[in-house]
């Protein structure tokens, strides 16, 4: 499970570089997110535009990633592809996260 991380303005952008966040890699994803966000503060935007598929394990790992971030941090999601968007919508987890069409849209919104 490959994640990259960079800072743009006031936000940390984490790009999930694997096409699937599923039962095979959910635990690794959660652990790697913890490593990337342990020292984070403020906005963290998870770019999911390269992820074609998540299952309920992947959803759980994304929720767990948010929960393991400091209270001062906010995990936002960007670039949800159709099946990923379906999982968030059917479970109503799209009401829990701020979801942007892209990282650019996420950054524009806050004038970063």
């Amino acid at each position, binding site marked *: 499970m490959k994640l990259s991380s960079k800072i743009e303005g006031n936000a940390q952008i984490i790009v999930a570089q694997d096409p699937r966040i*599923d*039962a095979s890699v959910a635990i690794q994803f959660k652990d790697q997110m913890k490593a990337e966000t342990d020292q984070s503060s403020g906005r963290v935007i998870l770019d999911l535009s390269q992820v074609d598929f998540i299952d*309920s394990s992947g959803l759980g790992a994304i929720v767990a990633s948010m929960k393991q971030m400091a209270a001062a941090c906010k995990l936002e999601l960007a670039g949800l592809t159709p099946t990923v968007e379906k999982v968030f919508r*059917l479970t109503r987890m799209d009401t829990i996260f701020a979801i942007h069409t892209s990282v650019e849209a996420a950054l524009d919104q806050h004038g970063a």
Partner: protein
Amino acid sequence: MINMAPEGGDIRTIGMDGLDLRIELLSNNLSVRGALATLIGELRQHDLTEDDLGSVELVMAEVLNNVVEHAYGMRDGGQIEIRGRKGDTWLRFDVLDDGESMPDLQVPASHEADLTVPVDDLPEGGFGWFLIRQMTDELTYQRKDGRNFLQLKLPLS
């Protein structure tokens, strides 16, 4: 016809004539990935919409994950069989395994999660059966001769 899964595991695809298909796989996460790729690859040749293909992949991922984790308790060596048939407006799948039976011999109940709780209390699991029920018209389970039979019917757009 024998297909080796792209990421390992043991997949055997049998009898792909017309709209009938059968896939046998070993019970592990990598084999599940391979079986899903095989299944979606086959269905893509039958004019399903991308939305329907996404639903099929999601439902079958959840069903197969349940077999791996609960019927076989993450143990190696279990066999899983998928049988699929297609009509104009529906897809039917049977998923068979030789693992433990479902508790109370029925599909687990599911309900929408309470998301009004504080962040620390948000659920990280338990979405699987809810997702399966959302995307199927029919869902039945039987235990026969030491085997689990789960039957699903999905609507097509």
